[in-house]
């Protein structure tokens, strides 16, 4: 490859036998090939070893009921992760007296992300309540938490889904 070896001495016209002159150089090409192969292998295996993580900090449980902050209805915004990658959302609270206006969207960039951004414009102090349905998959949870990072939503909480929310989804038929 990189080395061109001179033609071996053919001995001329059958005359005197001469001691063959060997080159003192050795062909290093195979060794270099191997060295670089190993180098590439080890370089690639080291770089990809460490996985990425998303940090999730849960609130410390407040024992004292009075010190827990109450959420204002005007600031509340609920996202429910349903089955089959559906996302339900409504603003405000949901109770038996006043049914919330439930809407459905998806996890795409024009789905829930736009909804959150629109909501942030209307109410900058929005607190998002994330409620995973029993049939939601872990990927949905990561996606929603990721959307919180993307939209720079600072206040959000992962809470258990209430029965009234489940009923709301059933009743809406979405």
């Amino acid at each position, binding site marked *: 490859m990189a080395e061109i070896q001179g033609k071996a001495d053919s001995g001329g016209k059958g005359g005197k036998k001469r001691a063959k002159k060997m080159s003192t150089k050795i062909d290093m090409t195979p060794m270099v090939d191997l060295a670089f192969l190993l180098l590439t292998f080890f370089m690639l295996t080291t770089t990809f070893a*460490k996985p990425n993580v*998303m*940090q999730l900090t849960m609130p*410390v449980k407040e024992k004292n009921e009075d010190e827990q902050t109450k959420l204002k209805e005007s600031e509340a915004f609920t996202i429910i992760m349903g089955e089959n990658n559906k996302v339900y959302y409504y603003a405000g609270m949901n109770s038996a007296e006043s049914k919330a206006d439930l809407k459905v969207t998806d996890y795409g960039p024009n789905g829930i992300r736009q909804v959150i951004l629109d909501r942030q414009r209307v109410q900058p102090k929005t607190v998002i309540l994330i409620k995973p349905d029993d049939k939601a*998959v*872990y990927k949905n949870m*990561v996606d929603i938490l990721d959307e919180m*990072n993307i939209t720079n939503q600072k206040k959000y909480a*992962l809470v258990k889904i209430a029965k009234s929310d489940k009923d709301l989804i059933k009743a809406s038929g979405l």
Partner: protein
Amino acid sequence: MPKVKPHRTSPSLDMTPMVDLAFLLVTFFMLTTKFAPEETVVVDTPSSTSDIKLPESNVITLTVDKNKRVFFGVDDDKTKVATLQKVGAKYGVNFSAAQAKAFGNLTNFGVPIGQLGSLLSMDADARKAVAKSEPGIPMDSLNNQLIDWVMEARKANLSLFKKQTFIAIKGDGQADVPTVQQIIKVLQEKDINRFNLITDLENKPVVRK
């Protein structure tokens, strides 16, 4: 005017410095690489835009696969063995030195403590064969072995290395949320409120404000 003779040089070039460097790098990477140990379960993690890296050491990994099974693993071998003895003592299960050594080489496991002894006595191939049928570590309110493993691993790591541990949750994309929430709930009862969710990296989208 005399003819200008082209200077004849040999086309060979001295590769020695390059080879030196290549071997230096090979040696460096060989010594620094820590091979990813064999996984008991295959987990397809979801992707996120977070670019924070998992800490290098003192990590407890809780793996959740799509069949709701939970696997426990801690990175350091010494911590592992110390944890095994503590948890074994708590449940009245004794492990031989060979079993403890086998446990040190195990990335993670997903069997109740009663079955752990027989799992550790197997050789690597047999263990691989039963990996699919490992039931996962129980963590319901009646039989919560997971929290014992986590707490003992934290204590062992703290006494061995004087460092706090990170809790990493490695969930499959299709794993169900109630299982993950159950893990979080169980750990929160012990005042562990920080979690690292292991994800793949995806590109950060541009957000229109």
